[in-house]
């Protein structure tokens, strides 16, 4: 089954590691009927309504049909205008005013007005719909948003009063104003998430068969069940969709930035890695994410090796220790475990060189990365044994623990290697415990595990704030599965989040990162990278560290084109 | 009368993991047009296998390895599959011992008879359909038009045997081979079947080769008898001649082992000691010598040929019963089958319409 970035965690649109572009614009374009890009998206999106999409393979569809206000620039250093021509922030950092493009149109030609944005965001923030990405990005930032979880979803009036209390307004057709509860330097990135999009009230209600109370979620989502009523403000629109088979996108003629060069994008939903690999090799796919087991096959193939490239991602993987299970509450024990994993061997042999070892938290290529901090967790079996002796813990004490593993082949392979490492280097027999995925989630939420992994993170937006809030005590049993006691860490992160200027915030985040590494809250093991095959005739593809694992460059398809071949 | 069937030195063997079973070891016999002959011998003497060889129905792992089977002027052993298919059921038909299992349990009786005819182009499907009921009536099955729709399990044993006979006669074959037709039936039904066969022979002129181990049956229906032992013919001749003066000790013992119900004589039935020989490891010389009370040294060395012992009577024996002194024979006294009894059986009145269908 498809593994989402091996660590089976959500890799979300995040930060730059320096975009790079394939081919050049100088190549001659192939005729119009060949301007088709065929990609394997892996799994069907759960819904075609971007506000309900939570995984990147879903967002790969959402981003092309609906365009948020802003989007990350190619270098991922800052945001750039998208649906909004420009935006300005009030001096107290509480009011964001987005100036919408006058020539922005919906796919059916109607102009996009500010009221559509208000309606779209309110649809997204409707508690009855329970969209996955509201919390914490929107309800904790937008004024009047914090009551999101206390709203009685059975009463329409309660929902309406909550939605009307939000700091969203449209002074005129081309200005969309968002008021925040507190200053948040990172809100520009929140506004670039694919979930923050405008919606057409008339289309939603027409699909629902007339106005409907905001508690009736089935009617609220009726428009999303039929590709024909998916009318977005994006570059593309959906021409046809067969569940579990394929989805075809064609250019939206009324897009403000001019119709894209590609005449058709076909997303296939092939969940079997071997089948997708065969489809690429029989010329039916234009790009492919190579499964680990086939990396050597590609490297040894004369043609394929030329088409393959390694794209580092901004995601870090680690082993999570449950502090409730003594002696895992002892930092020395956690350090010993982290120091007895040979990361070079793991990445070179087991992961076939597609990932890079890391001992620190923020991934390389993102603001805040600092490899020098990583020394305490460096691979050093002798030191690891000494740490155990110092902590008065024997290998037998550790042997009662189990390594909780999600049931994917990738996880099982990595964990069996790590379990063997602990056996070889510490003499501890920590058995691999493979468990059905849903059961794993329910166990880690209740803290019923010893060691769990490989766990990992890719930021929702390229700001350190989103990385460090994972390990706060508030997040215990929700993302912070280990609940390691970190004195002073919460205060440090809280202070860093609320200061505006980077020069003040970075040292604070660095101190927090050092604390994480030194006390081995988790055992960092590797930074992920994707080994992708891309046909030589795919020109102008801009690939960044935040793209979806299967679809490199899915942020900037406007200028991509197929050259003569 | 012209000879209908001539079997010349037939050899049929079974190639089993235990070795080669010589089931039929050089058998020669003939059947004339309209004649009724009996082929007798204990079970395992090769009589059934001889019959099956005539229709080339020898089951795996058996095969005909030598000799010829002449039917009028054609040699069955060299027929190709289509000729054999045309030959079976048309020129020569065969009915089997156990009526319980010889009919297809899942097809109606009428259809099983009809298909015997349509298999050979002699009757068009419409004619075939029309002949089914008369055939059933001819074999004395009451309410034929209703019974032909029944399935075999709705027929009694006797009724099924009659249906088999009707099936055999469907194409008016020149020869009907009946392999132990009455063994599985009780005595009263046996008599009906035998009478039926006698009538069919008389009315249709169908030659009958009756294969049985029941000497009384042979006496009552056959004109000539062939006695087989260990896969070969040991004696052959007209029935009354054989019954009056059997020359081969085996034939003699067989006749002595037939109990007579009507005659009260205190005498010991002669049962032949031992069992038929293992056809894989046959004894040297005369195959019967280990069980023969009158053997001489020669018998165990050399196998006697089938020599003329009387007009139209041959036997395969060095000693022959006429050379055995009376007292020796009497010592193994047994009830003889008086000639009159044989006649009496032969002239059994035709049973009128069988009252019920049992």
């Amino acid at each position: 089954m498809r593994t989402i970035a091996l660590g089976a965690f959500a890799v979300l649109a995040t930060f730059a590691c320096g975009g790079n572009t394939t081919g050049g614009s100088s190549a001659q374009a192939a005729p119009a009927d060949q301007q088709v890009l065929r990609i394997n998206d892996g799994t069907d999106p759960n819904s075609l309504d971007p506000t309900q999409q939570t995984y990147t393979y879903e967002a790969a569809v959402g981003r092309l049909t609906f365009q948020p206000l802003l989007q990350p620039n190619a270098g991922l250093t800052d945001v750039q205008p998208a649906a909004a021509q420009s935006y300005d922030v009030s001096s107290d950092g509480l009011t964001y005013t987005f100036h919408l493009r006058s020539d922005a149109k919906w796919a059916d030609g109607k102009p996009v007005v500010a009221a559509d944005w208000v309606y779209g965001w309110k649809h997204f923030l409707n508690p009855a719909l329970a969209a996955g990405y509201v919390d914490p990005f929107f309800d904790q930032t937008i004024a009047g948003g914090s009551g999101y979880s206390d709203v009685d979803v059975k009463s329409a009036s309660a929902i309406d009063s909550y939605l009307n209390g939000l700091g969203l307004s449209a002074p005129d057709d081309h200005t969309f104003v968002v008021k925040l509860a507190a200053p948040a330097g990172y809100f520009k990135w929140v506004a670039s998430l694919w979930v923050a999009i405008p919606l057409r009230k008339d289309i939603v209600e027409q699909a629902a068969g007339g106005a409907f109370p905001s508690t009736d979620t089935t009617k609220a989502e009726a428009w999303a069940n039929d590709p024909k009523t998916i009318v977005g403000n994006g570059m593309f629109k959906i021409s046809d969709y067969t569940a579990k088979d394929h989805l075809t996108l064609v250019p939206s003629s009324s897009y403000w930035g001019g119709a894209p060069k590609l005449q058709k994008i076909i997303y296939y939903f092939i969940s079997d890695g071997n089948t997708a690999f065969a489809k690429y090799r029989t010329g039916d796919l234009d790009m492919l994410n190579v499964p680990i087991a086939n990396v050597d096959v590609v490297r040894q193939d004369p043609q394929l090796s030329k088409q393959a490239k390694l794209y580092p991602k901004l995601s870090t993987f680690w082993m999570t220790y449950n502090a409730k299970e003594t002696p895992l509450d002892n930092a020395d024990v956690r350090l010993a475990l982290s120091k007895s994993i040979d990361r070079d061997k793991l990445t070179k042999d087991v992961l076939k060189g597609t990932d890079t070892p890391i001992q620190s938290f923020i991934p390389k290529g993102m603001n805040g990365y600092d490899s020098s901090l990583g020394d305490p967790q460096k691979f050093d079996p002798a030191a690891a044994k000494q740490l155990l002796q110092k902590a008065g813990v024997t290998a037998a004490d550790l042997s009662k623990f189990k390594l909780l593993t999600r049931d994917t082949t990738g996880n099982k392979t990595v964990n069996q290697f790590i379990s063997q490492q602990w056996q070889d280097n510490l003499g501890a027999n920590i058995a691999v415990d493979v468990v059905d995925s849903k059961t794993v989630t329910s166990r880690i939420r209740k803290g019923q595990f010893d060691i769990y992994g490989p766990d990992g993170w890719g930021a929702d937006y390229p700001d350190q704030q989103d990385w460090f809030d994972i390990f706060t005590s508030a997040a215990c049993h929700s993302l912070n599965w280990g609940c390691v006691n970190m004195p002073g860490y919460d205060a440090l992160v809280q202070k860093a989040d609320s200061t505006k200027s980077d020069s003040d915030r970075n040292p604070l985040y660095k101190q927090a990162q050092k604390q994480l590494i030194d006390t081995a809250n988790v055992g960092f093991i590797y930074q992920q990278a994707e080994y992708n095959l891309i046909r030589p005739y795919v020109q102008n593809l801009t690939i960044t560290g935040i793209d979806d694992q299967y679809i490199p460059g899915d942020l900037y398809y406007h200028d991509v084109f197929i050259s003569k071949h | 009368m012209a000879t209908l069937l001539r079997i010349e030195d037939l050899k049929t063997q079974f190639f089993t993991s235990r070795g080669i079973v010589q089931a039929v070891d050089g058998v020669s016999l003939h059947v004339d047009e309209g004649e009724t002959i009996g082929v007798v011998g204990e079970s395992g003497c090769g009589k059934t296998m001889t019959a099956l060889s005539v229709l080339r129905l020898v089951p795996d792992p058996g095969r005909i390895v030598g000799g010829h089977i002449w039917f009028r002027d054609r040699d069955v052993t060299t027929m190709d599959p289509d000729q054999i298919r045309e030959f079976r059921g048309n020129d020569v038909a065969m009915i089997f011992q156990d009526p319980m299992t010889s009919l297809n349990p899942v097809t109606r009786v009428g259809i099983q008879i009809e298909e015997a005819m349509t298999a050979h182009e002699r009757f068009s499907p419409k004619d075939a359909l029309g002949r089914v009921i008369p055939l059933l009536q001819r074999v004395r099955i009451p309410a034929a038009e209703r019974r032909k729709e029944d399935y075999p399990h709705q027929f009694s044993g006797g009724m099924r045997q009659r249906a088999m006979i009707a099936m055999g006669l469907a194409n008016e074959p020149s020869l009907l081979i009946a392999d132990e037709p009455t063994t599985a039936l009780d005595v009263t039904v046996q008599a009906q079947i035998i009478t039926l066969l006698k009538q069919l022979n008389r009315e249709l002129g169908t030659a009958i080769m009756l294969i049985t181990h029941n000497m009384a049956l042979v006496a009552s229906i056959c004109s000539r008898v062939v006695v087989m032992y260990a896969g070969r013919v040991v004696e052959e001749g007209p029935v009354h001649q054989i019954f009056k003066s059997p020359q081969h000790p085996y034939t003699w013992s067989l006749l002595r082992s037939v109990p007579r119900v009507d005659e009260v004589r205190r005498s010991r039935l002669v049962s032949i000691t031992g069992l038929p020989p293992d056809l894989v490891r046959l004894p040297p010389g005369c195959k019967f010598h280990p069980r023969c009370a009158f053997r001489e040294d020669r018998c165990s060395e050399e196998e006697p040929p089938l020599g003329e012992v009387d007009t139209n009577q041959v036997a395969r024996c060095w000693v022959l019963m006429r050379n055995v002194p009376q007292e020796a024979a009497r010592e193994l006294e047994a009830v003889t089958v008086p000639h009159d009894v044989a006649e009496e059986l032969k002239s059994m009145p035709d049973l009128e319409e069988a009252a019920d269908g049992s």
Partner: protein
Amino acid sequence: MANTAIGGRPARGALPVRRLLAPSSRGAALALFVARRVLWMVPVLFFVILITFTLMHLAPGSPWDKAGGRQLSASIVENLNTRYGLDKPIWQQFLLYLWNVTHFDFGLSYQYQGRTVSALLVSAWPYTATLGVLAFCVIVPAGIGLGVVAALRQNSRIDYIAMGFSTFGASVPNFVVGMLFIIVFGVMLYNITGGNYSLPVSGFGLDDHLIMPVVTLALLPTAFIARLTRASTLDILRQDYVRTAWAKGLSERLVVLKHILKNSLIPIVTALGPTFAFLVTGSVIVETVFVIPGIGRSFVEAVTSRDYPMILATTVLFSVVVAIANLVVDVLYVFIDPRVRLT
């Protein structure tokens, strides 16, 4: 009914009575039997739903736990539970479900928000059904044909080939067989033909897209039916009535079809019933490897993602299909073997 007594004189005393009751009485008995069996489906379905419902709620993990990364906050989970009625007591949910099912409302899928389970299944089933029926049309002739030939030519080369094929068919799982087909008839064929042709490795289409999936789907059942037919035919070959059939001079085709096969059908038909049911409700493996947009995957996906309405709908669907398949088998028994009475 064939006309009676053409020319032949009717047996004395027996009236040429048409058998009034027989055919229609059997027809009536049959209709009654089928009706009763359909009624019996109600209790069967009730227990199937009861068992599935209980197990579903006992299984660890909730539908809202995400496979990885950021989990839904407690408030959102609470909202979802209310939205889908999971906040009501279990027994009430069960009764509500029974009520809805009797009105053919199978509820909303948790996985694919806003889409009803029945719409999802109805739109996807034709793909699975096409594959299943085509595979079945391969299995019956190939399986029975191979089995009969292997039995008739026992211990010959053809018998050993059939035995070898059926063992291969069973000992290699179909995802490996499917992928080997893809490698050979997809990738290798593509390279050999210099990129002009290869069997399509994925997707559904009423064309050469069907070849590999149907063959992969049919491989194991064909192997099983072949061996079953061979064993059953071997038993029948030894029966006396087969020798009688040969003795009548029937052609080999007639002997095999009417006398041998008709008697060896019972075990074959018995196995074909459930086989058809499994085929028509889809194979998760074949549909994953060949990317067929059918319902095969829904069975497993529903359980792994704890999509309760989909779990119940797929289980009920299969239960109905297999109950009907077995009913057809029981009816066929009577037509195949007259001695078997309708219970």
